[in-house]
């Protein structure tokens, strides 16, 4: 029986409405409890420190076929960031695609305890879980790519939502997945034939179905199944000037899905979906249009996909988009997974301040985060590693909480981008409370994680303690101090165990892998017809497709009762 008492910290726990109150947090056997006996408990003196729930990342590519292919094509990325082993931690490499162990250590060092791997080709599920098993110190889950999965397309084409729902329930169990991920709906299937879809009403080849029908259909299916997270959508026309029109159309299309005032869709890395203009020369920010819509509607949540000026690697299941990037940059690229379920592309990318396009993209991300009034709607991510590596989060925190910080960076950007940027007109500086929403509470709520993102009694004892005294440190001015504090947490506590102290990993524990066990009234029967399709069209036999229980090192099945 282990007891821990975090004494006298400034607690920020938005889900329970606690805003910087001085209080104690008691932990027993990996859970938050009301109190512990004073003599037995190990004590952490958090006087003058900020205490928050362990941070949650809603979207970060840390495992799977694409990530690993990215590692393979970028030896030059690893050579500049070699991590030696210590008595506790294992060796590895960075930079933009860190090895599994380094991923865990670096996240934990920043106070993160839960991360979501948002893109997994069902075919590559086994591999993804093997990598997730090797990422220490974090709880994680992974989202299967279902927007262009053949069984989804077939059922939606027939108009059979219940059939589609049963297939989705089956794939969650089969791949040990957590949510429905949709990438460039319809576009990936088209990419198998060298084509793409260019609006939400383009028809997908061979399937007489449109992206609009796929997104709305899966949103309805998601609701029928009562899945904890909403559908997780990467929009059509991503990364193309003028694409904000498509993004708005997608959001408007989703208004037709009944929502009871709750979010029904999460649009991820919305920065990449908010470009105005009609070519790269006059590309500009559509943050005003997008944020106006977001402020007036409640059926969506978002994450930023904030650009970081550094050398990184883009990787997405959106193969056609990566091909466009390749044509723009001429850099080496890889196309993968182009079969029956998804597609994939990987290309290195160096975001530069002195590039007008990159600097505008940087500005769009921050504009969106600041113009959206409700922090429960938009969350902090870099779409790691697409817009930048995750360990740059403290930089984004500085930009969000300090106008001085973002103006200092803007001053170094391309003149054209400076002129176009809305940032000089935005005075909002996020408080620590709002920051706690954008980095943990909001993300946890959107993901439907009951025990995460808050410090109420019964929550998982995942806590981050930062060396920030909100009474004496003005983070709007001393943003560099704040950045350092968020870069190396004073303590990170995972399941009641101290895993990081003063930015150093002091204990190694395995995190859990969460997956959904969806109970439908009638289970999907894997019939001869399905098996025949696997035999004919997939590169694996049906028998080799499922992720068996022993593949997941520390599983946490979340049972969901469906309405179908």
């Amino acid at each position, binding site marked *: 029986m282990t007891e821990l008492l975090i004494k006298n910290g400034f607690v920020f726990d938005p889900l329970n409405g606690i805003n910087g109150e001085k209080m104690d947090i008691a932990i027993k056997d990996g859970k938050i409890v009301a109190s512990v006996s004073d003599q037995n408990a190990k004590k952490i003196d958090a006087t003058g420190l900020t205490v928050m729930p362990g941070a949650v990342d809603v979207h970060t590519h840390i495992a799977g076929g694409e990530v690993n292919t990215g590692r393979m*094509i*970028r*030896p*030059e*990325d690893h*050579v500049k960031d070699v991590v030696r082993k210590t008595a506790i931690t294992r060796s590895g490499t960075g930079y933009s695609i860190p090895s599994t162990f380094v991923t865990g250590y670096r996240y934990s060092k920043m106070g993160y305890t839960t991360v979501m791997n948002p893109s997994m080709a069902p075919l590559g599920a086994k591999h993804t879980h093997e990598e997730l098993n090797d990422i220490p110190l974090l709880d994680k889950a992974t989202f299967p790519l279902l927007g262009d999965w053949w069984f989804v397309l077939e059922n939606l084409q027939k108009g059979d939502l219940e059939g589609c729902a049963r297939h989705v329930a089956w794939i969650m169990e089969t791949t040990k997945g957590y949510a429905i991920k949709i990438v460039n709906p319809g576009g990936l299937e088209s990419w198998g034939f060298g084509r793409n879809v260019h609006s939400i009403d383009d028809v997908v080849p061979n399937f007489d179905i449109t992206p609009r029908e796929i997104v709305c259909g899966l949103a309805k299916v998601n609701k029928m199944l009562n899945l904890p997270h909403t559908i997780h959508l990467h929009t059509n026309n991503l990364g193309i000037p003028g694409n904000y029109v498509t993004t708005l159309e997608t959001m408007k299309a989703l208004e037709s899905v009944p929502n009871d005032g709750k979010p029904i869709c999460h649009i991820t890395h919305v920065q990449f979906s908010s470009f105005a203009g009609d070519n790269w020369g006059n590309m500009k920010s559509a943050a005003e249009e997008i944020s106006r819509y977001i402020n007036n509607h409640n059926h969506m949540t978002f994450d930023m996909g904030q650009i970081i000026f550094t050398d990184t690697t883009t990787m997405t299941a959106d193969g056609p988009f990566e091909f466009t990037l390749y044509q723009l940059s*001429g*850099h*080496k690229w890889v196309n993968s997974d182009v079969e029956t379920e998804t597609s994939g592309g990987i290309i290195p990318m160096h975001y530069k301040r002195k590039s007008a396009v990159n600097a505008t993209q940087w500005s769009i991300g921050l504009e969106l985060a600041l113009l959206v009034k409700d922090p429960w709607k938009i969350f902090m991510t870099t779409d790691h590693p697409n817009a930048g590596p995750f360990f740059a989060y403290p930089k984004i925190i500085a930009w969000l909480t300090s106008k001085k910080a973002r103006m200092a960076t803007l001053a170094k950007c391309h003149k054209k981008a400076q002129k176009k940027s809305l940032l000089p007109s935005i005075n909002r500086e996020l408080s620590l409370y709002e920051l706690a929403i954008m980095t943990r509470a909001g993300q946890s709520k959107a993901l439907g994680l009951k025990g995460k993102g808050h410090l109420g009694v019964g929550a998982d004892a995942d806590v981050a303690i930062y060396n920030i005294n909100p009474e004496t440190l003005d983070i709007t001015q001393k943003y560099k101090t704040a950045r350092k504090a968020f870069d190396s947490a004073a303590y990170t506590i995972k399941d009641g165990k101290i895993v990081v102290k003063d930015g150093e990993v002091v204990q190694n524990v395995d995190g859990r892998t969460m997956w959904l066990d969806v109970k439908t009234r009638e289970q999907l029967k894997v019939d001869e017809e399905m098996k025949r399709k696997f035999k004919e069209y997939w590169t694996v036999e049906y028998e080799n497709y499922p992720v068996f229980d022993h593949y997941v090192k520390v599983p946490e099945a979340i049972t969901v009762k469906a309405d179908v």
Partner: protein
Amino acid sequence: MIVLTPLRKFQFPVHAECINPDVFQGKSAKEIASLPVWEGNKKKKLADLFKIEETPAETPDITINGDATEVRRVGQGMKQGEIVINGNAGMHLGEKMAGGKITVNGNANGWTGSSMKNGLIEIHGDASDYLASPYRGSTAGMRGGKIVVDGNVGSDSGCYLRGGVIMVKGNAGPFLGFHISKGVIYVAQSAGNRLGASMTGGKIVVSGSVDELMPTFTVNAVKKKVKIDDTFKAEGPFYVFLGDLAEHGNGKLFVSQPSNPQLSPIYDKYL
């Protein structure tokens, strides 16, 4: 001047990026003796591996007498000064160097002058593979300066060249000038296959014979002379090829006409 003499034949690779005029500058022989080096996985001092002598002569700043084949990263990132190696040099010699001069009176090993920015490297023997080429996967090729090799070079030399001049007086291996975008490569004798593959700009000049020419190059003209740098013009006549068309390239590949009679029946009709 500091003279370094290896105390024995090294069995394991020695990583000695401290052998660099910028590092040695202003240090006494005693301080230099305690500079850190790695031999295999053991951390050592420079004096554990080399005899270190100080002589009154001003230049060169550093001389290595003896076989330094296993001594890697000599002159890495150096900005000024001169190093002379009387013997063979190890891998990554003058990697990322930004100025100064390195002379090798022997052969050089792989990745010599990798990603260099400026300065001069003279090799009076052969250079191995990856001369002036960046680290695997990287596109940060040589940006400036000059490399002169009296002997032959191995494969993948001058990859991703973005500036500067490479002169080879002997033969070159396959994949010479892979993906170059700017700068000049001159080979006095023959060049191996996949010459100039994926080049998008710059010049490659071959005065000897070529094994093959990639089909993604198109013949454009015949030229009598080609300027290599301010001091040297290569005598032709040369076929001028443009490519690599697979990369929409605008590079120029000059191949000697007299040394390559096999090209005449294929390309003369397009001139």
